[in-house]
C-alpha cells in the first residue's frame, strides 16, 4: 500500500490562529492546508496537517501567532497516503 515517511508532527492551537496563511507556503513538504469553511471562535480559518511532516519547524518559525508545537519522532513513522489512509 502507498505510504510516506513521517519524521515529525505538529500540534496546532487552532484557537490562536488568525488565518494568515503564512504557514502554508512555508511548509517545505507542503503538508499544511487551510480549512475552507471551518473557522475558530474568532472566525478565522486555520491549518490542518497531511501526512509527511518532517519536523523542520518552518511553520513554527514563520507563524506570527505562535500556533505550532513541533515534534520530531525518535524513529520515523510510515503512514499510508491516498485512499490507503482511509480506515
Amino acid at each position, binding site marked *: 500500500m502507498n505510504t510516506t515517511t513521517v519524521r*515529525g*508532527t*505538529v*500540534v*496546532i*492551537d487552532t484557537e*490562536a490562529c*488568525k*488565518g*494568515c*496563511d*503564512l504557514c502554508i*507556503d*512555508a511548509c*517545505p513538504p507542503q503538508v499544511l*492546508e487551510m480549512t*475552507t*469553511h471551518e473557522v475558530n471562535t474568532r472566525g*478565522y480559518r486555520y491549518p*490542518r*496537517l*497531511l*501526512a509527511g*511532516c518532517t*519536523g523542520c*519547524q*518552518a511553520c*513554527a*518559525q*514563520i*507563524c*506570527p*501567532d*505562535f*500556533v*505550532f*508545537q*513541533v*515534534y*520530531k*519522532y*525518535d*524513529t520515523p*513513522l510510515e*503512514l499510508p497516503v491516498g485512499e490507503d*489512509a*482511509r*480506515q
Partner: protein
Amino acid sequence: MSNEWIYLSTHAPPQEPAALVDDFTPSLITQANHHLCPGCGEPIAIRAAMEAIEELELAERTITVFGIGCYTAFAHNLDVEVVQALHGRAPSVATGIKRMLPDGFVLTVQGDGDMVNEGLQEVLHAAARGENITCLLLNNGVFGETGGQMTTTTTLGQRTKTSIEGRDPHQHGHPILLSDLAATLDGAAYVARCAVNNAGNVARTKRYITRAYESQMAGAGFSLVEILTMCPTGWFVDTLEGPDYLQDTLAPVHGIGELKTP
C-alpha cells in the same frame, strides 16, 4: 467534507516517542497571545531576536530598549529586561545604559517610522560613535500603528495612506536606505538586511541577528540588522499577499544581504 479523513490529528502531542523541538510560546516571550494583526511580520522577527538571545545565553545580561510602533506591544511581553523609550529615541537611551553597564548586552527594537523618520539622527549618531549596541530595524515601509501612512523608507510608487497615487519622488522625495547609509559610517561594525517573508529568509534573519549579537559581545562597535516585515494591514493587502508584496515592493529597493562585517 468528503476527504476530511486525510488530515492527521493535531490536537495533542503524539503518542509515539518524539522530541519537542519547538513549543507554542517561543523562548523569552511571556505569552503567545498578542494583538498584532494577522500576517504581521513583526512577531516573526521578534521571535527570531529572542531565540538568538537564548541560544547565545545572553538572557541574563540583556536590556532591550523599545521604540514606539506596533512592536511596542511586545515590550510588556518579554522575559528579558526592557526599557520603553520614546518614538525615535531608543539609541540614545541604549547608549546611556551600555555606557553604565559595559558588560551588559543592549538591544534596540525600532520600526522604520521610529528609526528612519523620527529618530534618524539618533541611530546615525550612535553608529558614528561606534556605540557598542545592536539596533534592530523592523522595516515595513509604513507607519503601521497609525494606519499605514508613508515613511521615509516607503519605496517609489508604493501606495500608502498619504501617498495614494504611489510615492512620487517630486512630491514625497526618495526613500532612505537606512542600512546602506549606516554602513558608510566608520563606527558601524556589522550591518545587514533581511526579511521574514518566507521560511528561508526567516532562517537568514536569525543568522544575521546572531552575528550582530556576537559582534557586540566581541566589542566590535555598532551593529544593525534591518528586517523587512509584512504589514498587510498598513499595505491594504490580504495577509496571503503580504510575502509577495514585500518581495516585489520593498526587497528590490532595500536589498537583502550583509552590508558590513567586522
